[in-house]
């Protein structure tokens, strides 16, 4: 755990006790069994808004507390522990980051207060195929009158059913596969031509496919620079990746804690199974891996806060190391629990399923290894 200041410690403790008491994994199970289309409990998100979590990144002048990404990460870690579902990451971190990084003063004034008070939910609509590939964007935005017409569709938009608006990545020029010619647009979910459908995924969280059929937007919908939106998109994605890594840290921590607890209590062959050296050594390696991955996640969040010049490198490092670690821990969670871990009655399966979703979103480990190598120039 990074050395925290007093305010950070308070927020972490608040998050921990709220999640444990108000939003434990039992609530996730209830939500799943109730088959809510938006895949989260509205009252849970309302409580988060009340606690000020949607304003953590937002300057005070727009109604936020401006505490930064490391602080946001502390909350996401606690949410990740209990698989608490909400649009906090998608809107409070990613959508908010899009405005902070790319928004005009006017856009910020319009959107940020609403994001803080929860009346707007803004999410990023980037990928169009099954794998993360921002440069493969094919959805077009054509100039038309004073504004643009968007045409195309997006797949697996995070919290896409709950969103009141989207940051849509569109191609305004350049060839498919190119970083050039991408632009970002703010598009209300209620705009004419926008339609969406929920996806039912193994992790039972909220995703939507969103179609933009000749959607007309004004010139003021453009976020950042025309045709040169890629660096902005990359920066938004990196903040999302760091946030995802923080959530993964919590998910992996909880999976490990459950495993460790089981190793200490489950008996076989007349003794607790944690006394079998082969399992003890595997647990030791997992613990070590967790400490190493945690350092990467915290470093990425701190780098964003301090506007360091190696944010991209550290975000890929964090998402990748955390992904590898969560992959291992989620598998060992099932393996070490044996048969009981395979039953739907037990929570272990939720962590396994969520793990793979988190690994894949905004680039899996292979994606980030490739990116890291490119960033280092080899």
């Amino acid at each position, binding site marked *: 755990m990074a050395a925290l200041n007093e305010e950070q410690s308070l927020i972490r403790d608040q998050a921990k006790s709220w999640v444990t008491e108000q939003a434990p994994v039992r609530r996730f199970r209830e939500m799943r069994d109730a088959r809510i289309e938006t895949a989260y409990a509205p009252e849970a998100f309302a409580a988060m808004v009340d606690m000020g979590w949607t304003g953590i990144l937002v300057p005070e002048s727009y109604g936020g507390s401006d505490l930064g990404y490391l602080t946001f990460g502390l909350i996401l870690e606690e949410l990740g522990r209990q698989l608490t579902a909400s649009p906090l990451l998608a809107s409070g971190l990613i959508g908010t980051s899009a405005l902070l990084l790319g928004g005009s003063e006017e856009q910020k004034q319009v959107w940020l207060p609403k994001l803080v008070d929860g009346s707007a939910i803004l999410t990023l609509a980037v990928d169009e195929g099954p794998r993360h590939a921002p440069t493969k964007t094919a959805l077009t935005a054509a100039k038309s009158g004073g504004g643009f017409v968007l045409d195309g569709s997006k797949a697996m938009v995070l919290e896409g059913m709950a969103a009141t608006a989207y940051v849509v990545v569109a191609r305004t020029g350049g060839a498919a596969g190119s970083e050039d010619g991408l632009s970002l647009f703010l598009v209300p979910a209620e705009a004419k031509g926008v339609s969406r459908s929920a*996806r039912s995924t193994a992790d039972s969280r909220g995703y939507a496919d969103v179609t933009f059929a000749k959607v007309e937007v004004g010139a003021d919908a453009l976020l950042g620079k025309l045709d040169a939106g890629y660096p902005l998109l990359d920066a938004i994605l990196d903040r999302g990746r760091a946030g995802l890594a923080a959530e993964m840290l919590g998910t992996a921590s909880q999976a490990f804690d459950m495993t460790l607890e089981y190793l200490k209590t489950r008996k*076989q062959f007349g003794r607790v199974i944690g006394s079998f050296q082969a399992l003890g050594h595997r647990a030791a390696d997992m613990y070590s891996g967790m400490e190493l991955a945690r350092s990467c996640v915290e470093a990425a969040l701190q780098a964003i806060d301090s506007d360091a010049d190696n944010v991209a490198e550290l975000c890929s490092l964090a998402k990748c190391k955390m992904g590898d670690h969560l992959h291992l821990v989620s598998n060992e969670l099932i393996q070490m629990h044996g048969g009981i871990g395979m039953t739907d009655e037990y929570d272990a399966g939720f962590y396994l399923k969520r793990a793979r979703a988190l690994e894949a979103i905004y680039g899996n480990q292979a994606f980030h290894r490739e990116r890291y190598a490119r960033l280092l120039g080899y």
Partner: protein
Amino acid sequence: MTASATKTEHGSDLEAFRAEVRAWLKDNFPPALEGIVPMMEGGADGSHAADLATWRDRLAERGWGAPHWPKAYGGAGLDHAHVRALAQEMGRVGAINPIPLLAGMGVTMVGPTILEYGTDDQKQRHLPGIASGKVRWCLGLSEPNAGSDLASLSTLAEDRGDHFVVNGQKIWTSGADISQWCGALVRTDKTVAKHKGISFLMLPMDQPGVRTRPIKLISGASPFCETFFDDARAEKDDLLGELNDGWNVIKRLLQHERASQTSAGGPGGKKKASALHEVAKRYVGVDSAGRLDDPDLRSRLTRHLMDAAAHKLTAERIAAEAKGNPQVSAAASIMKNSATGITQARSELMLEIMGQQGFGWEGDAYAADELAIVREWLWGKAISIYGGSAEVQRNIISKNILGLPETTQKG
């Protein structure tokens, strides 16, 4: 090597047999069943139910449901070379023997064990039903608090003269809800060390003292059940092996299980598993040199394909070395862990390759084969747990094959 060895030893006899099989298949195998694998869960392919029943009965008539069993017990009395030839010819036309699958654990586990340990009476009463695929069996081995430590079971069988009265609870009884018989491991002597007071009982499921409850898994519905015995009755005649010698019976049975779990690959159900690298090319794309457009994935994919190739070559080598005389060998533990690792790695790679499209739970956004991916992946997590966990197999290799001192009990 095998092919040439076979030729020399069996010569023209085998060729004649192949011809006979081919002709028989032409007349008897329903073409609609080509490549159809009946799932143990049953009903997965309800559309083929009638064809399957016909096909099963025709196979059983020839004794080809359990072709290596003696004719007297419903088999065909074939030696290994002929069994292989039969399987090869069936494979050639996409015909799959449903009987080992339909009959629960019958042909692969219970049957072979009855063949070894059963009395004549038991063989005559039980084997033909198994070989015909008409009588299904489940196994009552694990208990909720036992796990890999089978011997700590507490289901009790009390001697009541001509029968036993059984009380207790079993878990992971696969197919219990659709089985007519259960092979159960029970405690018949509480006064001795835990391995020593155990017996293997065969008891009918259709009686008031037996109740089953299906278990839902992380992958969804499953063939597994919890099975409760409340004053259930088992006849003395249905004790398999000696009283209090059940531990030896079960060890043998579990060897048969391992031997049946050593083939790597998904649980089947599709006409033909697509080569993983072809799927990858489709979902991931290729670069200008024709290489998969994800070099990191490509490298791990190669490792996996090499592992799978090594496994396949090893299975062939074991068969060749056994020279037509296969037996439950020490290699079973190696092959079980290898098969497990490859199957699980394949599922993980498939998930990675297909991305979000391989992660769907239900709904129109996914094709049927895409929806199967995630279920297979989750179900696959069980194969390193059941039938002797990966850890138990390592203990067996370490102790029984390598001769290292006991690690399970004391270390």
